């Protein structure tokens, strides 16, 4: 486990991505998996081919003189269309009330900035993004929903994400994205990768359907 930082910060990402790139090169075929998270990189190497001492030495060499990647090199930028509507975002109105603003203002604020993808986890292709405007931050639901539909866009504290698959979940749902975030037929499988940046774009119902979205509505309460 390589610990590079102590706190969650967007500024960590270009460093983590730079380190990941170097480690990929340094370990080559002896690299089994490399899992970036907010402050760490978990390096899984082939322990049959490399001793712990050899691996440590290789890490030290690889990270010597490390420079952060330029923000544009750390990943791709995606625009994700979202239909923000209470029928697919059952927590949208409560979130507006909590923020003391209108639903439109919640949407504007959610769409107002690029979010870096800190890490992927939970389910395949689930990208933890942030940080949303503090005014639209909200704690997780006290009781998670048993079934969150595919494409649901949620907020938990200052993090935001799209659920790539149907799964249980306790984030506040505000809309739905019609794009497939995880597709086993796609090259690279996951639309998002750690270090990518995402801008949400509000679309209307017709556009959502045109892009292949499923508008099956949800009950307002879990």
């Amino acid at each position: 486990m390589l610990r590079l930082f102590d706190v969650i910060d967007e500024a960590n990402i270009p460093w983590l991505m730079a380190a990941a790139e170097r480690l990929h090169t340094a370990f080559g075929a002896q690299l089994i998996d490399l899992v970036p998270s907010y402050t760490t990189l978990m390096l899984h190497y082939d322990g049959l081919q490399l001793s712990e001492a050899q691996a440590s030495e290789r890490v030290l060499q690889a990270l010597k003189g490390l420079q952060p990647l330029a923000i544009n090199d750390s990943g791709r930028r995606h625009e994700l269309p979202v239909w923000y509507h209470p029928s697919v975002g059952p927590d949208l109105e409560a979130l507006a009330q909590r923020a003391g603003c209108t639903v439109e203002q919640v949407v504007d604020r959610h769409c107002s900035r690029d979010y870096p993808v800190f890490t992927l986890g939970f389910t395949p292709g689930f990208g933890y993004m942030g940080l949303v405007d503090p005014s639209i931050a909200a704690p997780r639901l006290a009781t998670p929903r048993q079934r969150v539909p595919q494409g649901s866009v949620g907020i938990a504290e200052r993090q935001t994400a799209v659920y790539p698959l149907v799964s249980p979940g306790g984030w506040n749902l505000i809309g739905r994205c019609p794009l497939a975030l995880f597709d086993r037929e796609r090259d690279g499988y996951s639309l998002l990768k750690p270090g990518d940046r995402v801008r949400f774009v509000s679309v209307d119902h017709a556009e959502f359907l045109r892009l292949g979205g499923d508008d099956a509505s949800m009950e307002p309460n879990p």
Partner: protein
Amino acid sequence: MSMLRVEHSLGFAQLQDGGRFGVRHLGVTQGGALDWIAQHWANWLLGNPLDACVIEIPLGGLTLKAEADGWLALTGADLDAKLDQQPLRPWQVFAIRSGQQLTFTQPRSGVRAYLAAAGGFKANPVLGAVATVMREGLGGLHGDGKGLKPGNQLTYSAQPAVSRKMPSEAIPDYKSPVTLQLLVGAQSSQFSGDSLFQLFNQHWTLDQRADRMGMRLTGPELRYQGEPLISEGIPLGAVQVPPDGQPIVLMNDRQTIGGYPRLGALTPSSLARLAQCAPGQKIHLQPISQAQARQDHLALLARWEP
């Protein structure tokens, strides 16, 4: 080409190989046979690649019918297997004739049986592996993460590369006391001294909540005294301790990142042993050094060298 047809299945028996790698950064879990040692032996008996695709059968509830003659190997748990009503002992290669029925009913010793076939069962890999992960909807016979269902047809090679006999001293006794080895690390130094003493000097009991994702142990309450953690990658076998103080061993289908403090990780052979424990099993934990664990692991792998 040989073929087995699934006649009856509770849906838990599933295809497993060595697991999915190089995709953890996408949130995709590892998968693969939980008792990888039994899987390796099953494949070794037939001369297959050691991590070739096998059927992992937890507890029983599976009936297969041969639609052609073939060669199979059975290892792992004794699930009271029968070939046309005749008892079939595990840890051997056996021939199956077209029309014969193979049933797995209930565990007599151990939990998971492994059925290997000449050349390995054939299925298209998804993200580099056949490993079935139900939670993710990935892998398995049709790539959608489903367990075996009645009507499924499993194909394999007509002839095995070899037919070997199991070295009798290598057959495990799943009824013997269970001691698992822990590579102490991660946040272990931030647990109370008393907790670390209890960890290795009290017994643990495998909880009902034990599956391919994680195995929960119950026993003395372990107290973490450090700061809350920021979520990070979780290695196979990690022993995490949520706020209730009861450890969970994270298995092949674990979440890829997590934020609970960890005591370290179990060795690969301890994970294989744990996979054969039923809820209620008493377990002792023992610390092991990195160097010793590596040496033991290499010695184990050497058993399967050609």
